[in-house]
């Protein structure tokens, strides 16, 4: 191999890629523009979620700029967002956020994707006293560090499956027993713990509980044990890959239950496409859904339906909750900046801490730790191939189909 002949052009290409992001984005906050900074995963294992995050942020930015910008005091500002790719590495994310604050002098930070990266970046914004609103890190450990500058618009991990259990207790016949499985990462453990506590408090008996490694490739033993426990309700706290593995396994071993629920999975089109009609009757928890009926404050799109319509027109796919929560993170900044009437980081932080608004995405209000514990999760069910919101009753558009019939009739 004569690689030497290629080395010069390769080096030049490499240097060019390094220079690319610098050339294409505004260098610093200046003039009449508010600059936000964000380090999200544009490559790596979670690049899919990272892109969804970026779309959510950009959708808000373009909408606001097209509608005149943000009013601060008597002046109107346009909005810009400077991105870096953290390559799905929490340490890189923290470094890049530090660079955004100290080198690029951005005004505010929008969060990265995922709990791990949110955790590392929270420490950085705390040091520099620059407020960050994050939309994609639901683990409560981030907010138990006493930080004052990090806020999350999403409901915390422990609440993810509460809605499904709550729904189950209102069904006829009422579900009595629960089998609960979870991946052994921090986020899923918090989900499982919260679910178990909620189930116990509401008189539902946990007949089987087990955790599996995140990298598991075979869950058939768990499926056999669930079948032996014969629960009314099967809930899984995990991720898309394992949700698919579990649901396929349940069919393979013909396991019957009244409710099949997953913390992550059913809200993504991948889940429905992969499972076809076996996905019907599956229930999922989501931060938001395209059919959730919230009535937002003026200043931005006020309903899920309108958000969905404009989003599809721009990106040619339906927004999923990652998109919506990312947009909601920007909205928190928008309302807080308008209320503060200033771009001073300290004043905006205080306005965020006292924020109490309803948006198309639901309520945004933070507890003293910066966590949006006030927002419930919506419960969606896949009915005849479509994802519809079935709980809480106040925002639902359809009744839950309950109980699930035998596998052959789905």
């Amino acid at each position, binding site marked *: *191999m004569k690689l030497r002949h290629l080395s010069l052009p390769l080096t030049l290409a490499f240097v060019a890629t390094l220079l690319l992001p610098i050339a294409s984005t505004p260098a610093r906050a200046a003039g009449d523009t508010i600059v936000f900074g964000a380090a999200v995963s544009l*490559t790596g*294992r*979670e*690049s*899919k979620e990272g892109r969804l995050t970026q779309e959510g942020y950009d959708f808000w930015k373009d909408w606001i700029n097209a509608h005149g910008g943000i009013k601060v005091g008597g002046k109107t500002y346009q909005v810009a967002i400077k991105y870096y790719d953290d390559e799905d590495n929490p340490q890189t994310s923290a470094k890049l956020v530090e660079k955004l604050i100290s080198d690029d002098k951005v005004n505010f930070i929008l969060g990265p994707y995922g709990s791990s990266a949110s955790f590392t970046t929270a420490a950085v914004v705390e040091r520099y006293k620059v407020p960050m609103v994050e939309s994609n890190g639901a683990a409560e450990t981030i907010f138990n560090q006493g930080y004052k500058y990090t806020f999350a618009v999403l409901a915390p991990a422990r609440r993810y499956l509460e809605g499904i259990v709550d729904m189950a207790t209102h069904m006829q016949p009422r579900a009595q027993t629960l089998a609960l499985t979870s991946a*052994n990462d921090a986020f899923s453990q918090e989900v499982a713990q919260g679910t178990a506590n909620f189930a116990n408090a509401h008189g539902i008996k946990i007949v089987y509980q*087990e*955790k*599996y*490694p995140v*990298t*598991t*490739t*075979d*869950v*058939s*033993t*768990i499926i*056999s*044990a669930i*079948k*032996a426990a014969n629960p009314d309700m099967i809930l899984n706290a995990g991720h*898309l*890959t394992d949700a*698919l*593995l579990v649901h*396929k*396994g349940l*069919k*393979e*071993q*013909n396991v019957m239950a009244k409710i099949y629920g997953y913390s992550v999975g059913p809200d*993504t089109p*991948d*889940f429905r*496409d*992969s*499972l*076809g009609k*076996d996905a019907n009757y599956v229930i999922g928890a989501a931060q938001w859904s395209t059919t959730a009926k919230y009535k937002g404050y003026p200043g931005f799109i006020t309903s899920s339906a309108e958000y969905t319509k404009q989003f599809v027109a721009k990106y040619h796919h339906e927004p999923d909750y990652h998109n919506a929560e990312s947009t909601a993170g920007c909205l928190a900044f928008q309302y807080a900046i308008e209320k503060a009437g200033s771009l001073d980081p300290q004043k905006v932080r205080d306005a965020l801490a006292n924020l109490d608004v309803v948006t198309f995405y639901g309520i945004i209000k933070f507890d003293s730790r910066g966590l949006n514990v006030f927002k419930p999760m919506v419960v969606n069910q896949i009915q005849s191939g479509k994802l519809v919101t079935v709980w809480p009753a106040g925002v639902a558009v359809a009744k839950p189909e309950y109980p699930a019939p035998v*596998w052959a009739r789905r």
Partner: protein
Amino acid sequence: MGLFLQDLVNGILAGGILAVVALGFSLVWGIMNIINLAHGAFIMLGAYITYQLFTSLHVDPFASIPISFAIMFAFGYVIQKYVINNVARAPVLTTFLLTFGLSLLLVNLALMIWSGDARAVTPTYAGSNFSVGPVTIPWAKLATLACALAITALMQLWLARSKLGRAIRATSMDIGAAQLSGVRVAQVYSIVYALGAGLGGAAGSLLSLSYSLNPSMGEPFIIKAFVCCVLGGLGSVEGALVGGLVYGIVESFGSQYIGTGYQDAVALVVLLIVLILRPTGIMGKATA
């Protein structure tokens, strides 16, 4: 008792696939002394070939096994001839690094082509099953096991009977003597690496039925293949089969009676025990 039998069946069904996963890895390692970290990526590519054939051309996943084997065989041949061959006799760390880089490259290419979305191959019969007493057996997994056994049997036969197969075995026994007897070692290496990639592709096709596809799906299988090889004995077909089955069954019972969280730990403890009692693996022969 019902649960015990079900676990045993689950273990055997899982073990059959692991045997094919381990087989290609074992040949490359045993014969070429290359710990092929790109094996997981080959498995992933095989799965995506099956997925693409299934969604675009409605080819049944089982019918796509020979196709993904052939494509990956050709791919492996080219990779060996033009890339790996440059470092064929280099220290193990060099090939380690090269195959690791190759793996990264392939995974990220797959990310560009298919994106990070999870995908699945779901023919109409996916998930259908039958019961024998208290045990439920999914048809697709049973057929997968049958394919796995057939693939191992074919490999064994080919290595024992064919001229090329004998050349491969001769090379693994004594490279110098093989060369003196007229075996073209460079060609043998290309074939072995191609076989490894082809078997990885076939394993990917088999996995696509029960597993969901994403570009990094192959990663967890590298460590599993590693353990199966060492368990069963390196570089032999029957070793990979026994290693796969033992791993599958141990993992199944370990998950049920010790805890799924310790799935990997249990398998590794068994590996340690086997290595202490039989350092050459269950089916391994003592080297001269």
